[in-house]
C-alpha cells in the first residue's frame, strides 16, 4: 500500500507539472497538443546538458530555455502565421519525439537510451519500511510540485494577469476591447507552459530515473492534457486529476505484478482515457461551462477545414 502511494506521487509529479502547463495554455484558448513534444524535449535537454556540464541545474535551465524557445515558435506559427492549432501542436509533438531520438543518435551516437549520473537531489532518503516509504526517495521537484501548483493557482485565479488570460481565452473580442492584446497574452501563456513542460520532462528523466530513453514520455503529455480537461482547466482540479492518473498508473504497475490474472494491466491503463471521454461528454452537457476557452479556441481554429 505504501509502495503504491509512493509510486503514485512519483508518477503523478511530471503529469501534474505538465497539466499545469496545459492549464495555462487552455486558459488562453489554446488546445495545446504539443505538450508531449515539449516534455520529451525537456527530458532530453536536461540529460544532455547535464551530462555535458556536470550540473543538473544548468541542465534544467537549458531545458527550460529550449522548451520556451520551441513554445515561442509554436506561438508564432499558430498566431501570426495562422496555422491550425491542433495540427501544429501534434507536429510539435512529433518534432519533439523525433528530434530527441534523432539527437540521441546524432550527438551521442546512442540508440534507445542514455544513462546519466547527473540527477536531481532527493531530500528524504533511506526509509525502507513503514509509512515513511511514501515520502522517501522523491526528487526535489516532486516536493516543489505542490508549490508550483499553488503558485499557478494564485497567478491564474488571483492576479490581474490570470484574469486577462481568462478573458483572452473566453472572449478575445472583449479582451481586445478592454485593451488586452490576445496575441501577446497567448505568447506569455505558452512561454510559461513551455517552462513547466521542461520541469515535467526533467522530473521524468533525472528526477524519477537516471536516464533518457527514446519516447520515454510514452503519451504522458497527452494524459496531462487529459488531466486539464478532466480537472475543468482549474490548476487545482488539473493537479488532482494528474494525481488520480498517477494512482491509476501505480495500480497498473502493481497489477502487473500482483493481480494480472484478474485485471489485465491494459484495462487499468485505459481508465484515464475512458474517464476523459466521459468527462468531456458530461462537461459538454453543461453547455455554458464547455464554452469557457472555446471562443479563444475558435479564433485560432482554422475555419476552412
Amino acid at each position, binding site marked *: 500500500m505504501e509502495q503504491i502511494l509512493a509510486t503514485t506521487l512519483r508518477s503523478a509529479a511530471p503529469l501534474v507539472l505538465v497539466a499545469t502547463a496545459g492549464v495555462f495554455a487552455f486558459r488562453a484558448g489554446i488546445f495545446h497538443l504539443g505538450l508531449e513534444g515539449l516534455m520529451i524535449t525537456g527530458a532530453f535537454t536536461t540529460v544532455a546538458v547535464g551530462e555535458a556540464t556536470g550540473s543538473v541545474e544548468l541542465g534544467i535551465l537549458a531545458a527550460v530555455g529550449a522548451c520556451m524557445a520551441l513554445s515561442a515558435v509554436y506561438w508564432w506559427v499558430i498566431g501570426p502565421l495562422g496555422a491550425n492549432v*491542433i495540427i501544429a501542436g501534434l507536429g510539435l509533438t512529433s518534432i519533439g519525439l*523525433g528530434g530527441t531520438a534523432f539527437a540521441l543518435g546524432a550527438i551521442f551516437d546512442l540508440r534507445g537510451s542514455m544513462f546519466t549520473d547527473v540527477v536531481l537531489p532527493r531530500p528524504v532518503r533511506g526509509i525502507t519500511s513503514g509509512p515513511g516509504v511514501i515520502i522517501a526517495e522523491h526528487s526535489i521537484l516532486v516536493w516543489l510540485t505542490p508549490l508550483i501548483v499553488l503558485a499557478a493557482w494564485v497567478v491564474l485565479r488571483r492576479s490581474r494577469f490570470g484574469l486577462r488570460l481568462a478573458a483572452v481565452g473566453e472572449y478575445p473580442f472583449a479582451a481586445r476591447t478592454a485593451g488586452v492584446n490576445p496575441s501577446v497574452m497567448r505568447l506569455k501563456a505558452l512561454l510559461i507552459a513551455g517552462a513547466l513542460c521542461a520541469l515535467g520532462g526533467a522530473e521524468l528523466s533525472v528526477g524519477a530515473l537516471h536516464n533518457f530513453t527514446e519516447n520515454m514520455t510514452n503519451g504522458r503529455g497527452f494524459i496531462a492534457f487529459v488531466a486539464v480537461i478532466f480537472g475543468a482547466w482549474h490548476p487545482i482540479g488539473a493537479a488532482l486529476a494528474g494525481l488520480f492518473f498517477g494512482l491509476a498508473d501505480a495500480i497498473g504497475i502493481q497489477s502487473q505484478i500482483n493481480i494480472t490474472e484478474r485485471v489485465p494491466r491494459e484495462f487499468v491503463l485505459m481508465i484515464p482515457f475512458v474517464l476523459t471521454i466521459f468527462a*468531456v*461528454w458530461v462537461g459538454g452537457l453543461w453547455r455554458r461551462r464547455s464554452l469557457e476557452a472555446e471562443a479563444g479556441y475558435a479564433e485560432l481554429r482554422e475555419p476552412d477545414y
Partner: protein
Amino acid sequence: MTGGLQRLASTIVLVGFSFLLTALVLWTSGYGVGDVFSGTIQGAITATGAATSTVRWAIPLLLIGLGVVIGFRAGFFNIGGQGQFYMGACAALVVSLGWRGGPATLVILCGTAAAIIAGSAWSLLPGYLRVRFGTDEVLTTLMMNFIGALVLQYLTAGPMRNPSGTGQTAASERIPEAFRITDSSGVSATVLLLVGGVAVLVWLLLERTRFGLTMTLVGRNPTMARWQGIDVRRVGLVTFGLSGALAGLAGAVELHGPGARLVTGFSPEVGFTAVVVALVGLLSVWGTVVAAIFFGGLQSAILFLPIVTDLPPPALVLLHGMVAFLVTVKFRSARRRRAPLVPEALAD
C-alpha cells in the same frame, strides 16, 4: 480556381520549407545531405523492391488519409485514424484466428467486414457524442486512439499472444497463409484493385454526388447548412462512420496483406501521418493519392537508409513533425485583425 492554385502553391512551398529545415538539421548534425538524398531516392524508387515497398506503405496512408479527407471536408476534426486502424486490424485478427478452418475467401471477407464495422464503431462513438451533445471530437478521437492502442496491446499480449514468440514486443499468432491477399511485400493485384476502387468511390462520393456536396456545405458553414434544411447530425454520423470504415479497412488490409500477424504498437505513426497526408493533399482525393505515395516513399526510404548511411530512423518522425507544424500556415497578404468568430452555440 485561383484559390485552389494559391493553396497548391503555398502547400508546395511549405512542404519544401519543412524539408529544407530537416535537411538543415541533418547537415548541422554532420550527416551528408547528398548521401541521405540519394539514399532516399534509392530506397523509395530505384533499389530492388523499393517501388513495391513505397506502394506498400502508401496503402494504409491513403486509406486512412481518405477517411481524414471525408471528415475534414465536413468540418469534423477526426484525428482518430490510428485507433480505428488498430481496431480494424484487431477485428480482422479475431475473425481470422477464431475461424481458422473456414473457407479462405469467406474468412477474408468476414474479417474485412468486421474490420470495417469495428473501425466505424470506433469512430461513431465520438461522432455520436459530437453531433448529439457537441462534445469536442478532437479530444474524444484522440482518447479513442489511446484506448485502441491498449486494446491491441491487450490482444497481442493476452488472448491472441503467440506463446512461442521470442521477441521483446508481444505479437499475435500468425494467421493461416491462405487468409492472406498478398505476400510479405504487401502489394498484389487484389490489393491495388481494392484500394484504387475505394479511391474512385470516395472521389465519386465527394465530387459527384449530392451527399458529397452536402458534406462540403456542412463543413463550410454548419449554421447555413442547417437553415438550408440539411440534417447536419445525419451528415455528421455518416461522415464519422465512413472515416472509421476506411481506417478499419486499412487495418484489415494490413493484417491480411503484409502483416499476417499483429505486433504491439505496430505502425505507431500511421494515423498522424495520414492526417499530414490529407492536408498536404489539400483535402482532395487525387491530391491525397499523390501525397500518400510521396510519404509512403519516405517511409520505404527510411527503412532502406541504414544500408547507405547511419541516419537514425527517428529523422523521419522529425520530418513528419516539421511538415505538420508548417503545412497549415496561411499566407496572408496583409496582417489584418480578424473579426472574432462567435462560437456556434452562441450564434444560435
